[in-house]
């Protein structure tokens, strides 16, 4: 027993080293199954508050650009509001109103931290479950999609951005309704990759790419970007498309979280069908 203890003592550093590394890798592997190891990411209060303070300073430098973007968006929304349509077909508008049921509500948020230069990039927003944020909510700007929420704390949430290995987004070419999936291969933060698009369409550079109708997270027809270039696969059956994101993720300060009111209903229904 004593010898065993002595042996243990002799290699104590080595044992400690192994223990610490096991602990670190435990954190790494638990990071993906959310709600575990939450205290170690930036949705915790300490990191969130530090980021908020720094961000309030940083925001001053971006005020001009932010103002311009907001006023552009205001103009766009104003032009879309009912008041700015001439009343050619009064009856139809009225009927439509009683038909429609609102599916999405939007929650504005400030970006308090973001990155674009790592293989897996995240943003931190200053909204949490006290403001009605849940995980897997879409995050967009007026220019296009940004990502979706991952971990949520009381007043902050982290967003898995489209610049992440785990982000795989169902997209379509707007002109043809042709589906594909959007990923990011690392490197340049301005470009993504869209795969599995059939070659039977006459694709052109500059074609618009939007979110598809089948996305579990994103509303359909939200702008993603445009076709920058494309190549055919070796067998000639699929396009691989380089997508230029319409949203510049390097300097976003204001985003919208999309709350899908009908999502719980859809989820329950789909789960029930799968159980049968």
């Amino acid at each position: 027993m004593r010898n065993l203890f002595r042996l243990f003592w002799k290699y104590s550093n080595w044992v400690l080293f192994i223990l610490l590394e096991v602990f670190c890798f435990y954190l790494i592997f638990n990071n993906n199954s959310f709600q575990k190891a939450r205290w170690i990411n930036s949705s915790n209060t300490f990191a969130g508050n530090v980021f908020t303070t720094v961000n309030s300073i940083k925001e001053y430098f971006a005020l001009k650009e932010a103002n311009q973007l907001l006023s552009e968006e205001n103009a766009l929304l104003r032009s879309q509001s009912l008041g700015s349509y001439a009343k050619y077909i009064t009856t139809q508008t009225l009927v439509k109103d009683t038909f429609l049921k609102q599916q999405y509500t939007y929650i504005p948020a400030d970006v308090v931290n973001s990155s674009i230069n790592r293989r897996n990039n995240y943003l931190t927003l200053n909204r949490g479950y006290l403001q009605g944020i849940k995980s897997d909510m879409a995050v967009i700007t007026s220019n296009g999609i940004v990502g979706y929420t991952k971990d949520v704390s009381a007043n902050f949430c982290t967003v898995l951005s489209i610049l992440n290995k785990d982000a795989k987004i169902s997209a379509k070419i707007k002109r043809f309704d042709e589906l594909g999936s959007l990923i990011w291969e690392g490197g340049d933060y301005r470009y993504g990759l869209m795969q599995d698009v059939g070659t039977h369409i006459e694709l052109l550079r500059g074609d618009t790419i939007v979110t598809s109708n089948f996305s579990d997270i994103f509303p359909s027809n939200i702008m993603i970007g445009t076709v920058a270039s494309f190549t055919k696969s070796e067998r000639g059956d699929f396009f691989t498309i380089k997508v230029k994101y319409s949203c510049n993720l390097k300097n976003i300060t204001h985003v919208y979280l999309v709350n899908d009111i009908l999502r719980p209903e859809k989820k329950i229904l789909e789960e029930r069908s799968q159980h049968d």
Partner: protein
Amino acid sequence: MISIIFKHILRFVFLIALQVLLLNNIQFSGYVNPYLYVFIILMLPFATPVWLVMLISLLAGLLVDMFQNTAGMHAAACVLMGYSRSFILKLFSPRDGYADSTEPTLHYLGASWYFSYSFILVFIHHFTYFFIEAFSFHEFLFTLTRMLFSLIFTMILIFISQMLIYKPKDSKRA
């Protein structure tokens, strides 16, 4: 003794703050992100016991992880670096050993000694971190390029900090 501990705590807080508030925001063509905070581990006095080096490394790594959403990745790289430190110090030890209260500085042991010491340790840290982050050898060259760019940048910053903090003439003060 107290003042030495205080100095190290101050340096720890300063370097972590510098890392998460300033250096993590350097975004240069998607490649370069220097990790100067490993300087904390490089600068611990020779006499620091290995277990303490590893615990300090773990703490530094976890703090940076917290701000980067990379749970455990920096911590794992840092602990490996802290553990390797004792072997590197033994390997490069001068004939009459190190004076206990001193720290590994550029002016105490010379540029070539300091370069090999810091380069190997920073390489260990960066290599581990970048490959854990990518979590595959699938994009090997891409990850390696990113690592090398960051490595060069970190090394430059380490040498600049050394030259800024320590005056050549009173190396004994450390």
